[in-house]
């Protein structure tokens, strides 16, 4: 790859799930930062040159919707992919993120969606 790999931030309170997702994304050629909750995720998001976010919805303390709205306030152009084990999330949450998928749809879907989010960026 000629260019520097994309830096992706993963936020999830499921520690095993987060660890596995990090390995998966690294294998797919991304650089990955992880955060186990909303507040540490936001800290990394503002300090690091993150290019995309994979965000879990249900987390203790601050849910994915709140984290996304804070991220939009600091860097509105960074794409966010929202993951959730629930279906039927509130529409105001869905309207805030670029893309949404339910957990369990499988790794190819995740990789494909993340790729499509970063595509316009790599073209630019």
């Amino acid at each position, binding site marked *: 790859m000629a260019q520097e790999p994309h830096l992706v931030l993963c936020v999830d309170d*499921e520690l*095993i799930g987060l660890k596995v997702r990090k*390995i998966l994304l690294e*294998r797919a050629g991304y650089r990955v930062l992880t955060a186990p909750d909303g507040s540490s995720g936001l800290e990394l998001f503002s300090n690091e040159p993150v290019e995309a976010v994979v965000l879990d919805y249900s987390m203790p303390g601050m849910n994915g919707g709140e984290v996304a709205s804070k991220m939009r306030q600091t860097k509105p152009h960074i794409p966010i992919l929202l993951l959730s084990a629930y279906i039927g999330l509130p529409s105001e949450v869905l309207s805030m993120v670029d893309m949404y998928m339910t957990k*369990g749809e499988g790794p190819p879907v995740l990789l494909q969606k993340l790729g499509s989010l970063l595509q316009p960026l790599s073209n630019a």
Partner: protein
Amino acid sequence: MNLNQFNRILRQVFLLPVIALLLLAVALFLQIQDANSTVQLIQESDARIAQVSRIEKLILNEESGLRGYENTSDGRFLQPYLDASQGLQKEFDKMETLPGLDAVEKHYIDDLIEKHQLWLDAFALPVIATIQAGGQARDVDLNLRGKSMMDDIRQDIADTTHNAEQRRIARIQLWHRQVRHMEWLLLLLALCVGIFIGLFTRNRMHAVSSAYKTSLDVLGRRAEEIFQSEQQLRTTLASIGDGVITCDAQGIVQMMNPVAVDLTGWSQAEALGQPLETVFHIVNESTRHPVENPVSKVKRMNRIVGVGNHTILIRKDKTELHIADSGAPIRDRTDGIAGVVMVFRDITLERKTQDALLANEKLAVAGRLAATIAHEIHNPLDSVSNLLYLMRNGATKEESVQFMDMAEQELARVTQISRAMLGLYRESKAPVLVDLKEMLQEILLLMERRFTDEGVTVRVDLPSGISVDAFPAELRQVFSNLIANAAEAAGHGGEVRVSIAPQPGFSSNGHKQEAGATVTIEDNGMGIPEEVQPHLFQPFFTTKGERGTGLGLWVSRGIVTKHGGTIELASDTSEAAHGTAVSVFLATKPTINAGGD
């Protein structure tokens, strides 16, 4: 007009004519007195005329006696003269002392006496003296003088008599006038008094009659009002949606409204005079034992009684209806019981609706649970599918071992969750021994994710070995409900406490009590305002808007009651100690109330 006023009028109507007639009598009496005095005057005049004529007679006797003596000179002829002279003096005295003489009459009398005296002195006595001396008195001049004197006397007497007669006539006229006057006065007074009594009586009678009319009007209005109110009550009773049966104090049916006729199957005419328990035959839904006669129950309790739930009314045609009913005493004036009113309604449909609602709530609970479980399973499944993907796409041996370890861990979680889930559907017909600690832990495990999501800390105080006989699925529904409510109330950063406290068969002061355990679920949320608290256990009451069915606590209480337990809620909204605590007491060996909601 009250009775006093009426009596006063009666007195007035009695006394006034009496007084008026008395006054009339007084006036007449005065008039009669006047007339009487006139009559007296007339009598006086009569006496005077009589007296004058007596005097005249005596004077004539004197004269004729004297004349006889003159002619005969015989002393025997003089005797009448002497007798008359002697009487005359007496009659003159009498005449002078007669009552009611006026100056004119007196003058006449004095004149007469004087003239008589003159005749005596100047004629009679000289004549007698001459004859007694043996002489003659036949001298014409002398006799002429005597005659003229006597004429004078006669004239005087005639005048006096005439005068007296004139007066008498005048007095008689006066008397006539007075009598006429009296007649007129009598007529006038009688007329006046008559008119006055008439008017007065009319006025009083008018007052009485208007009062009577008013009373009649009032009575009429009252009667109309009573009729209307009775009509109103009758219509109300007839159109009321509930069955109403009225009995006397002995429990004999007196009246039924159309709904009661419809529900019991007994017509009004058939039921009349029958004992209530014949017409209103009620038994307990589960035991089929007859329920205590509402009449005797009302009499015993002396107040309104709700006749127990789960009552079945057996109709005349032996069909059955679920009813809800109550009995109320009809009070007599002395606050005793004059009868009993039974009010009841058909709740068969209501019961079906209730059952449907219960099923609905069960579905809602199941739905919420399913969502929780799906979430719980999705997370580990996601990890496992990611791990499988990694392994399939070329992992080293060491990596594969690590990935498999992680996949096993995640699968263990799934297994644990599915086991807890299985517990939900282990339903049995009879109550089984339920370990409360185990059950609460399972519930808390399933809800763990939710607690972490919502930032709620859970503290537990769950001693082991406390078990009660119960239907586990139902109890689980109660506790899930209560814990979910508590977590929601506690909110982010809040705390929920779940504890079990055993209750021994004897209290600390040695009293026998039901052995069991109290599960308490507390939160430190804002608390429930007092005005909301009474509604909490009502169906469809919710503070959660769209998210709640409003059936949770209602169903929970139903389940706890069915288990022969109690559920109590205490809440505090104060700044210092806000929060809510729900305590559920469950007996170790409860009497299960089959339909106990």
